[in-house]
Every structure is written in C-alpha cells, then in structure tokens.
C-alpha cells in the first residue's frame, strides 16, 4: 500500500516504528464489562454468571472485543492540559497531512490470552502503511494502516488490532 516516494520523509520515517508505548489508565474492571454487554444486550453467561466463568474460563474475563476500551484515555484528568486521544498515530497523520476529517474503514482484531478483571494492559502503536492520495465519495485524502498491540502485566500478548483509517478533506470530490 505504501509508495514511499509520495510520502514526506517525516512520515516515511514512522513506518514500522513503535510509537506511544503506554500503560492503561485503570485496571480492567467488571463495571465496564457489564456496561458493554448491556449496550449490545449480550447475555453470554461468561460475563454474568460466576459459576459459568469458573467452569469455562477459570474465572471472569472481559468480552474479547473490548480490547480497545481499556486504552481509551479519561476524557479529563487532573493536570492534563490537552485532551488525550486514543490511537494517537491516527491523529498525528491527520495533522501531518492537514486532513481535517477522518473515518475508520476496516478493523481486524486477533485475540490471544483472555483479558481478566484486574489486568493492567500495555499497548503500543505501529504505523504499517500510508497510501498515495485517493479520492472517495467522502473527499480526497489518504488511507493508512495502524497496528495496535496489547500485552498484559505478565507480558502475554492479549491481542492485536489493525485499523485502516481514511483521513480526508471534504468538498474535493
């Protein structure tokens, strides 16, 4: 996807580089697990019934698709002067290319070790590719692919997400 000849050197230098290694701002907790299940009416007894969780998963776990939830920063925190953003590489690219709008088009998630209440996860972001300029029905901009890797406090891989984003400027179709 990447044709590095069309990329500014500052972007080219970021390809395949590990960025934003971070630790989650709070331990995985069941309140959010239940809120998430409630939002989609997920009655899987793994998340609601401790006896089932003990039998099947050796104790409570989080729904696997909640992976990114544990890394979204608080909307506000004491001493924070700028809003912290999830998937910062995505917002960096918007700024670098001066593309005011963006959407996510594709998302691949690979699930490894189960995430459990009390886990404190760490993450890192890796820019994999950036396209040449493209025009879609939304506008003109670029596609990019960002991987986010997640590990737990025992350094076990719990998942990898791969996002395809499209940063664009409206009205240039």
């Amino acid at each position, binding site marked *: 996807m990447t044709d590095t000849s069309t990329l500014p050197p500052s972007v080219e230098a970021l390809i395949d580089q590990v960025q934003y290694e971070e630790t989650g701002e709070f331990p995985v907790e069941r309140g959010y697990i239940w809120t998430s299940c409630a*939002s989609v009416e997920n009655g899987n007894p793994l998340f609601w019934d401790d006896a089932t969780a003990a039998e099947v998963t050796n104790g409570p776990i989080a729904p696997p698709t909640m992976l990114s939830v544990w890394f979204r920063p608080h909307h506000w925190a004491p001493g924070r002067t700028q809003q912290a953003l999830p998937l910062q590489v995505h917002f960096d690219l918007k700024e670098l290319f001066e593309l005011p709008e963006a959407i996510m088009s594709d998302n691949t998630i690979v699930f490894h070790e189960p995430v459990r209440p009390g886990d404190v996860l760490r993450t890192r972001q890796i820019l994999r590719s950036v396209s040449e300029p493209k025009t879609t029905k939304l506008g003109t901009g670029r596609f990019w692919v960002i991987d986010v890797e997640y590990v737990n406090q025992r350094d076990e891989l719990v998942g990898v997400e791969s996002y395809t984003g499209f940063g664009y400027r409206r009205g240039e179709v």
Partner: protein
Amino acid sequence: MNLLTLDSVRPGDVLPVLRYDVTATTVVLGALASRDTRPMHHDYDFAVNRNGTRDIFLNTPNQAAWFERYLTDWSGPYGRLGRMKFRMLGSVFPGDTMVLAGTVEHVEDDTTGCGWATVLVRLTVDDDLKTDCTARIALPVGAGDNPWARRGDQWVP
C-alpha cells in the same frame, strides 16, 4: 447453556437472524460503553454539519461488540473468538433497523487439534450492506473439549 460443537456445524449453515431497532440511546450507550467521547457518536449537530453524515452513528468498537454478541449467541460460552475482520461500508443511524445475518463459510481442525468455524456476518439496513464481518471462532471439537483452555502455541488464531 448452549453448547455448540464443531461436529454439528457445516459450511453453508445459516445462523439465526438478529434484528434490532437502533435508537439514539443505542448509539450513545454504545459509545459510552466503549469510552468513545468523539462527538459524532453523541452530538447530532457535529455529525451532520461537521462530518456530513445523516445523524450520529454507531462507533467501531460497539459494532465489534454487536458482532461478538451475535456470534456467541450462536456458539454459547465455549465459543472463543480468534479473529474478526470487518469493513464498514456505511453508517448505522438512529431509526435504522439493523439486521445481522451469518453463514458458516468454512470448518476446520488446525494442526493443534483446535476446531474452527469461519463465519461471514452481514450487517444490513433495509437490505443495504453496512458492514461485513468475517470471524474465526473456535468451537469444542466434542464433549470435554474447551477452546478457552488453550494457551501459548496451542492457540493459533
């Protein structure tokens, strides 16, 4: 407790359809549950006048949660997601009735003996495809097998 095993699944099997009437609450609760405070998921004016969309719309992590719920409704709690890929072709708005419909594409045992079903799920509104999702979900190969017990090199998602 629903206990689906791999030997009862065949390519071409159709999963029960899920229909759900999406409201503004669905969208906002989904964003809240995934800690997503971006305004296009709760602020009508921003969504319409800044993003150029019809209304606020379901966010990506909440769509993933809907797909997970749909798949494990079918598999039961022993079903363990290994991989999920989805492409969003259009947005889901309040007032839409979203329909999730899945078909088993492929069934296999991997080299570790883990049983897998690959399921294609289509999320449509008024027969218009909004998101397609391909999921690989591990299922017990028989009574006594538990995909969740797999760790390390015995888990190849």
